């Protein structure tokens, strides 16, 4: 019987490094959303609290998806260290703005991975990342929609604004 020969990795080493950075970014985003959820929870902003808890779960889910993909492709996933997370916020609008900033940062980082995968002909990673590209469009749109609600409601009390935010 012939020896089965295969490449140990179906993923490019450079793409693997970028994806490991992406895991760290997603886990940091998840931790940041937890901090935001806690701020809202303490102030009984129920819809926002639920929204951020769900976001924290989703970001962790994204990280896990990448984590498993790297290992399945023969690479080595790295469990990331989470650097300090901001727990101080001025208000609810500021939290949603920070959340949009964070989503934009994640999107840009996904694009970086995607570009790298394309430039080194790593087709498996490119196809894998397509889902994330669409997902980020959705994520950014959700937060932008919420910020529009803030603009529409002007100086209404926080609790009233929160009640009109989407229930997640």
């Amino acid at each position, binding site marked *: 019987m012939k020896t089965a*020969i295969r*490449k*140990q990795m179906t993923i490019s*080493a450079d793409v693997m490094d970028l994806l*490991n950075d992406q895991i760290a970014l997603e886990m940091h985003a998840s931790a940041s959303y937890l901090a935001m959820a806690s701020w809202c929870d303490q102030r009984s902003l129920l819809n926002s609290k639920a929204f951020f808890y769900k976001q924290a779960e989703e970001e962790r889910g994204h990280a896990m998806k990448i984590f498993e993909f790297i290992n399945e492709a023969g*690479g*080595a996933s790295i469990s990331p260290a989470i650097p300090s997370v901001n727990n101080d916020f001025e208000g609810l609008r500021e939290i949603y703005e920070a959340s949009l900033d964070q989503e934009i940062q994640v999107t840009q980082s996904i694009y970086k991975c995607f570009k790298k995968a394309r430039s080194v002909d790593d087709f498996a990673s490119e196809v894998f990342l397509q889902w994330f590209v669409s997902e980020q469009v959705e994520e950014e749109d959700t937060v932008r929609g919420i910020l529009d609600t803030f603009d529409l409601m002007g100086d209404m009390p926080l609790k009233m604004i929160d009640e009109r935010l989407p229930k997640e």
Partner: protein
Amino acid sequence: MEILSDVTFNIQLRKKTFCDYRLKVDQKMMTLTFPQVLQLRQKVNSLTSTENLENIIQNENYVLLFIADKKYLLFLEIPKLLDLKEELSYCFENF
């Protein structure tokens, strides 16, 4: 690269079989599996980031590196650490 086949370097990483790699650092020969090579690559890349290199230079000026699931311990000064990084990146060029 054939031209270099009989030249020996201070640091050499060679693939024996698909899951058996031999790393030679000076006179020390070490056997590594592919996941262990991947882990070594990750450690060396992290140690040679600008920030970490600066930190090493300002302190001990060398690193002690456990490799192959702590089977071996390597003493590496900065030039050797950089050579190892070079060798590893060469090994991964074809992946």
